[in-house]
């Protein structure tokens, strides 16, 4: 037998991964990406003549719990009907036991890449406001995402913002099976097989003691292995981290205060909800006082001048012009 060439090896890896969905409805095309649990493929839905995205678990579920995770993600997506959340169309199981579901195909790029072409801070913040709106909607529906990070936020060609990968989401009021029994050791994510080899993948939850979420983006209480006890403020933390990444290293003081409050270590020091955070961003954008920052009299004056600078300039222009007319108008 000839040595398998790199090309043949790559082909074998591809064709042995490529899912064969039951029936003739879906035709699988190229791989779009991978998440913590599986791979996402572009596919054509022949029945409805449209392109969809199909997410397929890499392996058959190792346990009922893992199976439950993908099913729960599908159910969560099905119940969250919102323009910022990808709708799900279909769910099933491959002949080899791998679970899959079909969802709307999002043609966009991850938030971190999308903002590379958006240099203006207000425009970035407006994108962020849409993200907050979606997260708040989920919270009102009793769902906490628990893995908010730029890679899980897609920005479409028309500026639409979509929150992806609800695989580790928690439904408030629904107990989760096999919650982590103890805080994980620092190396838990590595030892569990480097689910985070790209430095950004969500850690696995199949082993007791591992952490749900992505290191660097998840709230401290979540990183401490108490993922099952978190509330919407864990997502506020994730939003805070995203905001931090969006505003750069030297944001205006009031904005820095908003970021600091959103990503405070203690949940009680954060905004209580995503909408409270959004309201402060909105206030920042409109130049009014933000709740996260107590300003001095001079700062307040400076902000008011900044906020109304065009009107003030026009008034000044009027006064100057009137003064000039008064002094030299008859010459």
């Amino acid at each position, binding site marked *: 037998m000839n040595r398998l060439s790199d090309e043949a090896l790559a082909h074998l890896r591809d064709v042995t991964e490529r899912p064969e969905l039951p029936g003739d409805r879906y035709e699988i095309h190229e791989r779009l990406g991978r998440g913590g649990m599986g791979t996402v493929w572009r596919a054509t839905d022949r029945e409805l003549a449209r392109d969809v995205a199909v997410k397929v678990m890499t392996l058959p579920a190792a346990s009922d719990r893992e199976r439950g995770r993908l099913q729960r993600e599908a159910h969560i997506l099905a119940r969250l009907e919102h323009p910022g959340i990808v709708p799900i169309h279909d769910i099933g199981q491959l002949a080899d036991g791998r679970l899959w579901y079909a969802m709307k195909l999002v043609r966009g790029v991850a938030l971190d890449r999308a903002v590379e072409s958006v240099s203006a801070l207000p425009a970035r913040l407006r994108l962020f406001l849409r993200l907050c709106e979606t997260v708040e909607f989920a919270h009102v529906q009793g769902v906490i995402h628990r893995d908010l990070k730029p890679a899980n936020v897609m920005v479409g060609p028309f500026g639409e913002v979509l929150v992806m990968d609800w695989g580790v989401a928690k439904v408030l009021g629904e107990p989760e099976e096999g919650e982590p029994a103890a805080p994980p050791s620092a190396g838990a994510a590595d030892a569990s097989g480097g689910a985070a080899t790209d430095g950004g993948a969500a850690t696995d939850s199949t082993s007791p003691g591992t952490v749900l979420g992505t290191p660097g983006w998840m709230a401290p209480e979540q990183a401490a292995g108490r993922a099952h006890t978190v509330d919407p403020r864990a997502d506020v933390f994730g939003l805070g981290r995203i905001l931090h990444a969006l505003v750069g290293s030297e944001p205006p003081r009031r904005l820095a205060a908003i970021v600091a409050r959103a990503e405070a270590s203690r949940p009680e020091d954060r905004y209580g909800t995503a909408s409270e955070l959004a309201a402060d961003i909105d206030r920042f954008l409109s130049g009014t006082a933000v709740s996260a920052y107590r300003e001095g009299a001079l700062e307040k004056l400076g902000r008011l001048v900044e906020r109304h600078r*065009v*009107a003030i300039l*026009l*008034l000044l*222009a*009027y006064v100057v*012009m*009137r003064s000039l*007319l*008064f002094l030299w*108008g*008859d010459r």
Partner: protein
Amino acid sequence: MNRPLLGVLLGLVLGALDGSTAWFTAPELRPEVLGIVFGSCTKGLLVGLVTGFAVRKTGSLLRGLVVGTIVALAFTIPIAIMNANYYDNATYYWKIILPGAITGMLVGYATVRYGRRAQPRGA
């Protein structure tokens, strides 16, 4: 506050202030200052009303500035011509047109910036 109403109020206030400056800028007209203030208020009211309607749906501040200026000029140029001819004093062109244009800009800008945008029909 909706934009036409805000435009009317701004036009009235700025018109009154603009008219009353005649006391200082045109001392020869002091006996007629009440009439001037009344006329300026009326002009401001009409400029504010027309501008407020014209920009009631826009989100563009620049558009507010341009519309306010054009509407103000449309009202002030004829008045300036009439006054300049009546008093045979060319300085009225500047004394009326320039302040009128700037107050028009101010009304247009402030109407868009601070007034409530009208929702598109059916929204």
